[in-house]
Structure formats: C-alpha cells, structure tokens
C-alpha cells in the first residue's frame, strides 16, 4: 500500500572510514607485547599503515575500547576459545567505530572457523601471525571505506504507525486484494506464513477495515503462554479454580466481545484446548475455568500460524474439524526474500520509524549495506529486518546506514571473505563440516534430529563432529 518502488540513487561522496592519516586503528589484545605469538606486529605496523595499541588483558582492552574509536581488534584466544570468541563478539557490539574482530589462535580448528564465521568474526588466523594473512585481512577492513551512500525512496504518508503494511510487490498485492475481500465480512480468517511475515499486522488491518472495527482487537500469542495457563487466559477463571487463581479473571474471548480475537501461533495449542476453541467457535459461548455458567460471546476470530497445519493434522497434532472452521478464508503471506524491492521500502520505513524514536535523521544507506541486506536469507522475515534496522539506527552516527552498522551475522557474507583453498572452492571436508554445522544449528544442536536430517547414524555424526571440532 505504498507508491511503486524506486531504486536508491547514487549519491557520492563516500565517508572515509579510517583515521585522517589513512591508517587503521588496531587494538591487539593478549599475547605478549612485541614478542611471543604477535612478534612482528609492531615492526609491520608502519608499513601496513596501522596505528597499533596493545592491551595485556580483557579489562585493559575494555577500557581502551571505551576510550576511542577502533577499526579492528586482534584478540589472542586462550584455552577456552569458543567462550572467548562469544565474549568478544558480545563485547564489541555497540563499541565506538564498530570494530571488526580477528581471532588469533594456536591451532584453529575447522569448527572454530565455522563458529567464528557464524558469529560474524572477520577472520580466524593461526599463530604465529603471518604478515600476508594480516595484510589480506586488513584489506578487507579498508574496503569498507569505499561505500557509496544511496538515498531512501520517499516515504508514503499513508504508511505510518507500528502496524502499517508496507510493500508493493506482486505477492503483497495479492494479499491486499484478499484482505479487501474479507475485511467487510465477519468470516473467520486463517493467516499462514513464516515467522515474522506480518500475520498480526494483517489481522489488525482486517479488523480495522471490518464491521467490528469499533470493538476491541485482542491478540493472544498461544506460543508464548505456558500451556497450563492458556485455557484460563482464553476463557477466564473463577477465584480459587486452581492454585494461583487468586481472583476472578475475565478471559480474552470475553474481552474481545464485539470485536476481533486474534489467536496467533494456534498450532501450538494442545488438542484438549483445540476442542474447547472449536466449541466456542461453533456454539458462540464459553465457560470460565472453575465456573459452571455458559457465557455467550460475539467475536470475530482470526487465527494464524507459521506451521503447516495439513502436516499437523496428518500427525494427529491438530484437529481437522477446527482447521475447517478456521480456514473459511486463508491468506498466505509471502516470505521477505520473495518480495523483491519491498525490502528497500521496508528499510526506509523502519529507518524513519526508528530515526524518530532515537532522534536521528537517516536519509539513506550505502551500496554495500544494501548488497548485504539483499543477500541475507531473512529467516525471521520482516521482524528480523526491523530488528536489524533498529540496531543499525542505534549505532549510526551520520545520516547513512553502512555495512559497519549491520550485525556481524550479515557482515560475515561481505565480499572478499577468505577462501579456504587455493582454487577458491572448498574441499569436500570443508563443505561437509559446513553442512553439518548448518544442520546442527537448524536442530538447535540436537544430535539425534541432526543425524536424522543428514541420513547418517548418530554415532557417525558424533565422530564427524569430533573430527571437525564442531
């Protein structure tokens, strides 16, 4: 519901990234000054146009980081390298100058390299430090200086507030058409879509344009509420109905009377509660927990889920009769990666929204930042993008969002990332390690589930994890 997308236009000149002398400010932490594993660093500093400071330990490094702007931190990792890596990534978040991190370790394993890459660490280098390796890493830091600012397309005055629908892509136009058709009825609507695609925004918009718009819009997140409390949250309870029922409570069905009840993440509901929802939808009355009285309710129901309900029905985890009651009209929301140039409109929309909140004027983003944002997979869709732009808005110091303002996870894919073999292609072992790491991340580290996905025995997986240091 915005004007057609305009591509950002080129607007030089770029802002210099490094110190006026052209040098990079580098903080080396750990090891020994001048000797030991970092030997050579001081001699190379002048040649490499690096202004080098050295901190013996973390507290001193923290003080130095707080005291000025840094481009790069070279951190020597100890025995607890994983923990230290995570600590550094955490410590550098929000540090002035958005310094990048290069981790230095005695014998970095492939697992460590993969974990570092996932955390957005610029590079992992082996000790003793080699001049060529450092030169190559510094070149990648310097390349950020060439970013070109692109102004945002003008904002749509109609698109305002926290719950606005932004986008002009064909996929979103289809959604708008469907919304327009159902808004004026009282039909139950089922909104499907991945996490963060804007299901609640769509539900609110349908409510605002529907016959119950003067009534309340009550949203219940079924995934957030503990299972044992969800029933009383929805239907209310009488005082003393159960331990903790300290007073009578009016449930969300009653609160939404004359308006819309939005049940988000409905697939997370237990089967017994699904039966009670079905009864409420069919008979238009509810009973409070611990109460014997039937209470009539008049609400428009909109439900949403990011799960595949057909699969859930087949697995016996979702009631088929409830599905058909809810899916009178179904709206499928597209993923952000399928929305093309909506990405640019959304970036502009969020930058303006957060610029207002944090009292900053942001007019555009750099070409490199846009490239990184376009390349990202956006598993969290618009919600993830919103988060990224808010974070960037907090750290931006002028009117342009640059790659340095983006989270490390996005910057891990910056052009020029080091290849791990001379041919530029990964070895079979590297590819295998990377894939295993990805699957483990997908399963939240659960080995059994990962082994199932990979189609190998869990013992084989455990052996490979050990082999690759995962």
């Amino acid at each position, binding site marked *: 519901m915005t004007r057609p997308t305009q591509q950002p236009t080129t607007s030089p000149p770029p802002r210099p990234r490094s110190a006026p002398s052209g040098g990079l400010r580098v903080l080396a932490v750990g090891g020994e000054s001048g000797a030991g594993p970092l030997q050579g660093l001081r001699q190379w500093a002048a040649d490499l146009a690096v202004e080098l400071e050295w901190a013996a330990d973390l507290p001193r490094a923290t003080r130095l980081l707080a005291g000025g702007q840094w481009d790069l931190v070279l951190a020597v990792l100890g025995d607890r390298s994983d923990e230290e890596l995570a600590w550094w990534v955490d410590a550098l978040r929000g540090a002035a100058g958005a310094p990048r991190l290069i981790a230095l370790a005695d014998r970095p394993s492939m697992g460590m390299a993969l974990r570092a890459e996932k955390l957005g660490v610029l590079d992992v280098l082996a000790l003793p430090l080699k001049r060529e390796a450092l030169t190559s890493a510094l070149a990648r830091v310097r390349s950020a200086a060439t970013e070109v600012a692109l102004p945002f397309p003008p904002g749509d005055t109609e698109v305002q507030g926290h719950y606005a629908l932004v986008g002009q892509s064909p996929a979103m136009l289809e959604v708008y058409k469907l919304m327009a058709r159902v808004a004026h009825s009282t039909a139950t609507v089922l909104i499907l879509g991945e996490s963060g695609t804007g299901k609640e925004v769509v539900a609110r918009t349908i409510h605002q344009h529907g016959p119950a718009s003067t009534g309340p819009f009550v949203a219940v997140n079924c995934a957030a509420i*503990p299972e*044992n409390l969800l029933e009383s949250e929805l239907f209310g309870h009488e005082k003393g109905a159960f331990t903790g029922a300290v007073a009578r409570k009016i449930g969300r069905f009653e609160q939404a009377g004359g308006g819309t009840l939005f049940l988000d*993440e409905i697939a997370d509901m237990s089967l017994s509660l699904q039966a009670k929802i079905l009864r409420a939808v069919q008979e238009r009355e509810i009973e409070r927990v611990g109460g014997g009285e039937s209470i009539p309710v008049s609400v428009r129901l909109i439900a949403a889920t990011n799960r595949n309900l057909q699969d859930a029905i087949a697995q016996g985890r979702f009631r088929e009769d409830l599905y058909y009651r809810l899916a009178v009209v179904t709206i499928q929301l597209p993923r952000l990666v399928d929305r093309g140039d909506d990405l640019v409109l959304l970036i502009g929309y969020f930058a303006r929204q957060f610029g207002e909140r944090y009292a900053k004027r942001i007019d555009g983003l750099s070409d490199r930042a846009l490239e990184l944002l376009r390349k990202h997979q956006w598993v969290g869709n618009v919600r993830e993008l919103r988060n990224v732009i808010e974070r960037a808005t907090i750290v931006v110091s002028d009117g342009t969002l640059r790659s340095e303002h983006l989270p490390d996870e996005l910057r891990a894919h910056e052009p020029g990332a080091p290849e791990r073999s001379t041919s530029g292609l990964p070895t079979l072992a590297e590819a295998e390690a990377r894939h295993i790491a990805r699957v483990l991340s997908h399963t939240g580290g659960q080995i059994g589930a990962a082994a199932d996905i990979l189609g190998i025995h869990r013992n084989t997986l455990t052996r490979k994890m050990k082999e690759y240091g995962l």
Partner: protein
Amino acid sequence: MRVEQALRLLPNLEALTPLRGLLLSSARPDERVQWGSGGPYLTVGKRDVEPGELARSMGAVLTFVAEHIAALYGAYVEALERQERNDAPGAVAALLGAGRLEEKVGRLSQAHAWYEVALALAETLQDRRPEVETLLALGHVCLALGQYAEGARHYQRGLVLSEAEFNQSGAVDASVGLGNAAFERAEWPGARAWYSRALRLAESGNDRLRLGLIEHRVGVLDRRQGDLAAAGEHLRRARECFETLNGEAALEMARVLDAQGELDGALGRPGPAAGAFREALAWVRRDQHDPGLDVAIRLHLAELLFDTGRWLEAEEEMRRAEQLAITSNQMRGLVRIYTLLGTLRGRQGDETGFVFFEQAIALCRALEGPPIDEARVYHAYGLFRQVCGGPDEARAYLERAAEILRTLGVDEEVERVTAALRNSHDVNTPAAGAG
C-alpha cells in the same frame, strides 16, 4: 519436548534436584521460533529438551553428584575420626568444609544444616576460634537465604567472641556481616555504624582486601542513601585497594565496577555507566569465571539500557544473561531475569509480559529457593498487574509478597509493598462523594 511439559513429569523430590537442574540447563532454544511472534516471550519453559541428549549428559551429572556426596560422606567420616582422636576443632573444620561444599553448589539450606551441627560442637570447645569461624559461616548463609535477623544474631555472637579473643580479622568480618544484615533490612544508620567499625579495624591491620571490600559496601550504602559524591569516593578507594593486589581480587574488582556502573547510571551518565559494566564483565572473565556475578552485572547493564530507551539492546543483554544463567544452572539469577523482563514489559504496557512472572514463580516453587525470591517476584508481579490490568490479581500478589516479607522481618520492603497496596486500594475505591 518442551521443558514445561518435561517438568510436569518430574516429581518434586529433593533427590531429583540435580536432574531438574540438568533438565533446565540442557534446554535449548528452538531457533525456528526465535523470530516468531512468541519469540520475545520465550522462557526456559518454552525451550526444547531431547530425552536422548538428557540421557547422554546424565553420566557427567551423576558423577558430579556421586563425587559431591562422597565428599560430604568423607567430611563426616573425617569429623568422626577427629572427634575420636579428641581433635574437636578438626571435627568442626571437617563439618564446616562439608557446609562450604554445599554452599558452593547452591544448596544453602543444606549448608545451614552442616553449620548448625558444627556450631553445636564448637560451642563445647575452650578454643573459641572454631566457633567464630562457624558463626561467620552461618551468618553468611543466613543472609544468602534472606534470614536477616538470624544472620545478624550469628554475626553479633561472632563479633563478641572475636573481640574477646583479639581476633581482628574475625571482628572485621563479623562487623561487615552485621552491616550487610542491617543494609538488607534498610537500617541505614546501623549499617553505616557497623561498616565504620569494620573500616577502623581493617585500617589498623592494613588488610587491603578487607579494606577494599568495606569501602565498596560503604560506597553502595552511600548510593542507596543518595550521597552520590561520597559513594564515588568510596568506590574509587575500593578500586585502589584491589588494584594493589595485582589482579588477585578480580571478582571483587568486578563487583566494585558493577557498583560504579550503577552509580554512574544514578548520576545520569549512561556512557561511563555502560563502560564500567563492560569492564566489570571483563574482570569476571579474567580468571575464575563467576556466572552468578556475570548474570548480575548483565542485568544491571540491561536496566541501564532500558532506562535510556535502548530497549532492543536491553532485551539482547537480558537474553544473553538468560542463556548464561540456564547453561550455568544459575536458577536464582534466572528468577531475577524473568522478574526484570516482566517488569520491563509492564513499563511498555505489554500485557503478555505476565508470562515472565509466571515462569519466575514456577521456578521458585520447583527449586524451593529462598522465600525472599518468591516474595520479590510477587511484589513485582503485583506492580505489573496494577499497570497492565487485573486490580484484584494485583492486590492478591502484593498481599502475598507482604505476607512472606513480614515473616522474614524485612520491614523496609514490607513498607514498600504496603504502600503499593494502598495505592491499589485508592485506585479501585471510588472517591468519596463520587457517583
């Protein structure tokens, strides 16, 4: 399987506490729901646990439990042997050692029980040093349990005995303990008097570590009383004391910097405050990592970020603290994290924030922690309900908090809860003559 489902299948038996701890610490967030609309409300109960993973981790936990029990049994046998050899002070030391082992793994009530037995034996000795040591240990564990009056009694007795025996370090520690007990009960003049006494004693002995600890406490007391300039001066002196110890007081330094961060926050200097918290975190990492302290500092940092409108960063910091608390089994820390998350959601007018209080209460019950923790959750929950709807629930939660706090003799907190209750009553009672 969700943790909340798994916990329902676990009876609330003391023998199963390590298993409960393992269940919680092995819970993993479901990355698929991270970006879902329920993501901001996820608690440990909504994490996943895999029975197979649990079974595989069980060996290490059982070994740890077996070693712990073996050490306790060993301490007991040693106490018997010493007693048999007429070495009663040695027997007291063995019993104290068992209590310290319990305290180290967070079993405060059990530690209390060991110390009680040690005290009964120590009281029969002519040499009063074991008794002093035991009284100080008891005082410490009582304060950790929120039993401030009992803790103060032990410290008082410890002080009398230390002075009679010219045991200066014992007298310093007892005075600090008495100051802490008074501080926890918001008896500011009493706390100041005890800390001053401890300071005089420590100065005469030039004990840098103890001096630093006392300066830190006085700084915190000054801040609580609103004398921010004096607080800054005492914290500076505390840092100086610890700096002379060549990094041997890394955790103490972290605590002082944490207090400095809170002071800078109170002075409206968010930049230096954040810097102090970050440096404190670096000190925590320096040698022996203390996850409990790490969690506490992150919570202070999160509060600062929230107060300065940096909600996203505050949330991220709290989630990092949550992850650390879960993996390192810092369940009391986790209760504080959820209480704060709920409070912050309340300030944002987000009614769904109630899920954090419910989780905190569930944890308090499952872990049978000190009652003061549960009281504080109810207090915060009552305030949340006052803002986010549910006046009847607000009153009920506040009344419950007041009831627990009264039994603990924490008058200042009782007064604050009572004031909130009055406020709740005023809000819900129509003004005279209205209607």
